[in-house]
């Protein structure tokens, strides 16, 4: 089977909740363990909120990946906000330009198997994460 993608807009706090719920459904369907589900949902929650708070809103593409090699859930968070000037700094625990704990981005990276971030100042940010069934 190929992939099925569902796109959700992220423009309000309720949308962050919706992203979590959709990811939970997908992760369960993909057969992720309870621990893996929880980690993926938590990472998605962090990135969805960053999209909302710092990216001025955007979208999440949630897809189930089911090919011969592996099975799991991949999510792409994309916004057209200000971008991140220093990615290494943003990934550092404790760094926040708002008033968060500054653990979201780094924490999300530790919670998933695949993590990729593309960003440029003035051009927005795209973060892709995936968690695979073990």
């Amino acid at each position, binding site marked *: 089977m190929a992939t099925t993608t569902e796109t959700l807009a992220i423009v309000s706090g309720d949308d962050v*909740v919706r992203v979590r719920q959709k990811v*939970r459904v997908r992760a369960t369907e993909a057969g992720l363990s309870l621990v893996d589900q*929880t980690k993926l949902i*938590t990472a998605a929650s*962090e990135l969805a*909120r960053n999209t909302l708070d710092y990216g001025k809103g955007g979208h999440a593409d949630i897809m189930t990946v089911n090919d011969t090699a592996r099975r799991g859930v991949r999510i792409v968070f994309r916004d057209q906000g200000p971008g991140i000037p220093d990615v290494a700094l943003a990934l550092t625990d404790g760094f926040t330009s708002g008033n968060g704990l500054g653990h979201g981005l780094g924490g999300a990276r*530790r919670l998933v198997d695949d993590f990729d971030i593309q960003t440029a100042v003035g051009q927005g940010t795209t973060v892709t994460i995936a968690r695979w069934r073990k």
Partner: protein
Amino acid sequence: MAKSAAQGALARLITDGEAEILADWLRTFATGETRISEQEAKAQGKDLLHALGKAVADGNVADIGSPDYDEVRDLLTGFSRSRALQGFSPSETATFVFSLKQPLFERIRSTADVKTAADQLWAMSSLLDQLGMFTVEAFQKTRDELIMRQREEIEELSTPVVKLWEGIVALPLIGTLDSGRTQVVMQNLLETIVQTGAEIAILDITGVPTVDTLVAQHLLKTVSAARLMGADCIISGIRPQIAQTIVQLGVQLNVVSKATLADALALALKRTGRTVEKVNKSGRSDGALAAEMRG
């Protein structure tokens, strides 16, 4: 705007034929409706038709926002409000207004010449379209308010602070801890701590599905605010998968945690100088029995 002769004719058409139009109108939608009584529908229809006749006579049919239409708009607002509360759908509610077209159009066709009829039909049709849209918007507004109110009620409901023991309160957290709710939760807890003079507050997160950095931050804020009020916090109900996730987020909660609410209560009792013992068959605690035997 200036009252035209055509407008006067249109108004007369409504006013003169009121009883007849009303009867035809009610017939179109009365069949099989159980949520509202015939009398209620009749009363609503009658008031509306009457107000409409006056508004058409005095006001601009192309502008239902004008003061001449105040009464019509008020009636429609009240009407869509009651329909929303009675569980009608927006389209059902708007249909009530749109179904006035049929009887009105029939009157126009049977009383006017072809040229006048065309003008009147056009004027009446666009007027009813405007009124229908207005009804849908009013309906939506009521529903939004209703949802908002229910949401606030749920926020209140789902954050009860319970007094477990003298000096010990517990806050069973359930559902999504977004910022709005957390505010309420924190407020409730702090008030209860002050009122009861509690020394220990147990925050039970068994019912919280996800603990991300925002939730963690809310918890931390609650813990330090409670501390300022003189109460120590214990967090209970951290499930294993949540514990692992918190560790990977790298967030330090820096607060005593227990697996279950029961464990947290036992610890709280101990800290406030009490213990829980098993009672033997004679109804006395083993400790008391041992003391007795020693004595």
